[in-house]
């Protein structure tokens, strides 16, 4: 995924339109977008929407944190839908993941199958950032880390800026942790929906740093995020060279081969294929 779009779980209009907004994935938000008095309403509305509208877009659910009274109902009422992923907020350590997975293992789909839902851990506290690698490795269901800069900067007692100096360490830390654990990593949303230049710069930086993609909070952000995460011309040329060299090596019966003096191994070949797939998908 290059992006996923948060949709308030208690908003009928947005739930109805969610499938047509062009995001790679939809996240039905039961947490920050829903006031405490409406958590039950959001749960019921989201469930009805998914069951009725048969979304074609990949979707996930941001449930409430494990230190709230809401999260177990979120899991038992909504994960029966077998969403592609669940986002767990306020993950401070691997124990949060263990609690969630333990609850998930009690859930089955309507036809009695175990759910296959993956987990994205949202890191938005100082302690969560420091435990990023342990969280990334906490369970095989964890497929990505997501940075939550708004709550994080409050915890850091930092001033949140568009330039993002105050979150550079956190961005780098969760990047390294995710890549070391072999999972994906997503950047925090850009919260000024009127500032398209700022969004572009923030998304380009996230791509340069190595993030897989970026969260969006408004449909207008999706195109800019996709452009930022498109491979550059240089990356595309290199990817084609790698696959061309691979083909030549295979014809010659060579197992290992070099390109521009560098040995090419499986991860580089896989990355080249991903780059060309992303470019092809964007053109389609």
């Amino acid at each position, binding site marked *: 995924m290059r992006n996923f779009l948060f949709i308030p779980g208690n908003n*009928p209009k947005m739930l109805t339109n969610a499938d047509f907004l062009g995001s790679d994935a939809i996240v039905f938000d039961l947490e920050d977008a829903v006031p405490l008095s409406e958590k*039950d309403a959001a749960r019921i*509305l989201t469930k*009805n929407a998914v069951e009725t509208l048969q979304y074609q877009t990949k979707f996930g659910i941001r449930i409430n944190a494990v230190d709230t009274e809401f999260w177990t109902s979120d899991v038992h009422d909504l994960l029966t839908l077998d969403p592609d992923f669940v986002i767990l907020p306020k993950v401070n350590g691997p124990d949060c993941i263990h609690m969630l997975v333990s609850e998930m293992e009690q859930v089955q789909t309507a036809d009695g199958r175990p759910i296959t839902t993956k987990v994205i851990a949202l890191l938005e506290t100082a302690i969560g950032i420091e435990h990023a690698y342990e969280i990334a490795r906490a369970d095989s269901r964890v497929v990505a880390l997501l940075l939550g800069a708004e709550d994080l900067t409050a915890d850091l007692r930092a001033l949140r800026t568009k330039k993002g100096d105050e979150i550079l360490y956190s961005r780098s830390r969760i990047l390294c942790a995710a890549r070391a654990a072999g999972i994906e990593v997503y950047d925090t949303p850009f919260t000024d929906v009127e500032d398209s230049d700022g969004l572009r710069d923030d998304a380009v930086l996230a791509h340069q740093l190595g993030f897989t993609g970026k969260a969006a909070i408004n449909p207008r952000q999706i195109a800019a995020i996709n452009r930022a995460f498109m491979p550059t011309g240089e990356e595309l040329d290199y990817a084609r060279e790698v696959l061309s060299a691979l083909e030549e090596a295979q014809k010659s019966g060579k197992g290992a081969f070099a390109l521009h003096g560098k040995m090419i191994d499986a991860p580089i070949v896989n990355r080249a294929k991903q780059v060309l797939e992303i470019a092809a998908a964007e053109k389609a």
Partner: protein
Amino acid sequence: MKLLRSASAGAKVRQDLMVVLHPAEAGVHIIIESTVQSLFEAAIRSAAEDVLSRYQIEHCQVEIYDFGALDFVVKARVETAVRRAIEGDTI
């Protein structure tokens, strides 16, 4: 199942509805005001009755103030009101 209290759910905004549920002595009474009354009153009533039947609610008064909600929204808001009316302080 018996309603313990009055309860409401939803909002008076476009594509949503407000449902207000009260315990009643006998029978199910549904009052509907809708921005698309002539076209969809029957469908709204049917959706509400479907949820009430599922929860075996036999005695209630339901007030629905609809602003063009789709069927799944009607059912969700009625279900929310029902659960709030039959359970404790449910969230």
